């Protein structure tokens, strides 16, 4: 019999405690190699859409902040178009949609300054509520964790992704808290009763 796809994905290994050296060297004090850390700035004056900030802390199972986590986000532009490979056409040329931040070494707080994304279709054509995709790595995390952040000031009730979650009492872990005008807080809990929903997607 012929073989199916011959290759298997390379196994993940933890990002480790020194992920900053490779991914955010300027943040870690290694200056002069790259002009800026990739993904540090998401928005310029030309970017269309409502300016928002998203900040939070990743907590371990003891309630201790992770001070060595690296967070990446990926989101659509204000019209709901992804910057690249979106079959619905080009998006806002002043918005790349990708951000990367390290948790603060002292507090564990991370923060993105971005714009509020538009709605994006589910494969069957129904619209998903505006959301931001998250990818979290750190020492002690063996494979990057995938989750999503939704907005408390949007109608998430018919979202085709959220409504697939069996335990609807866990859905609030995916919805940010509004803390001010355009300011959102999205804490991530790796364990415990408030454990954030993570996805295999």
């Amino acid at each position, binding site marked *: 019999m012929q073989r199916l*796809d011959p*290759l*298997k*994905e*390379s*196994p*993940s*290994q*933890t*990002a*480790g*405690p*020194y*992920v900053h*050296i490779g*991914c955010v*060297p300027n943040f*870690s004090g*290694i200056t002069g*190699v*790259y002009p800026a850390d*990739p993904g540090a700035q998401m928005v310029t004056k030309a970017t269309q859409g409502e300016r928002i900030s998203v900040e939070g802390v990743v907590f*371990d*199972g003891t309630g*201790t902040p992770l001070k*060595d986590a690296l967070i*990446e986000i*990926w989101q659509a532009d204000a019209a709901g178009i*992804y*910057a*690249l*490979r*979106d*079959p619905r056409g080009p998006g806002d040329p002043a918005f*790349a949609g*990708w951000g990367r931040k390290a948790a603060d*070494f002292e507090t564990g707080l991370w923060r993105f300054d971005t714009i509020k994304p538009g709605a*994006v279709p*589910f*494969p*069957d054509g129904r619209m*998903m509520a505006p959301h931001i995709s998250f990818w979290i*790595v*750190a*020492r*002690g*995390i*063996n*494979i*990057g964790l*995938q989750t999503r952040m939704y907005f408390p000031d949007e109608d998430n009730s018919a979202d085709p992704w959220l409504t*697939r979650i069996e335990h609807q009492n866990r859905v609030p872990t995916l919805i940010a808290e509004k803390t001010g005008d355009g300011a959102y807080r999205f804490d991530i809990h*790796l*364990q415990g009763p408030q*454990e954030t*929903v*993570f*996805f*295999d*997607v």
Partner: protein
Amino acid sequence: MSDGAFFPRDRSRHPPAYTPDYKTSVVRSPQKALISMPTTLSEETGPVFGHDMLGPLDNDLIQNFAKPGEMAIGQRLIVHGRVLDETGRGVPGVLLEFWQANAGGRYRHKKESYLAPLDDNFGGCGRTITDDQGGYRFRTIKPGAYPWPNRVNDWRPAHIHFSIFGSGFAQRLITQMYFEGDPLIWRCPIVGTIPDRDGIESLIAPLDTNNTIPMDARAYKFDIVLRGRRSTMFENRMEGN
């Protein structure tokens, strides 16, 4: 070009979240089951980086942090390979970022406390973007092994960390490259988080004498495999190929 859904991730190939021999994972591992979802546009799209972001020394760790006319200390290496997907196709335009300890096993990092000295000419980071065939290469020095606080006497085998972007955010991957013949590989609790031997072997780069530069640098070959994706041809989508 395939722009469709990603093949489901074969989780049996990857370390589970909870791996008590790697102690830090104990309180950092989600305890509830991951919720399985189909990929959507949010996962099938992803950031892509242009070659114009790269500086001329980004792929040369021997020189990119060194003072003019000086070089990092250590065994000179070329690391090269291809980024492929599970269908065997090379993946072009992939941003690879790498970081590593210096020749003595010391990282340039404020949380690092190992007594081995820093090398003033070695920063430890580099990056490149794969070519049309998915190929990449960079120059560095061989990182040293080093002890780490886990069990009383754990040592990491020499390794280089890799961060890999694919064509979609669902392919995002961080892994580590090890070196052929290192006896510490099979004693390392982080390597040991990988469930099977074949998976571990897939992260061990062989010495590549054909690509060694005589009287200059040895070569190691390290291929990386990302998740494959389906063609959209027969899927019920609004648009596609």
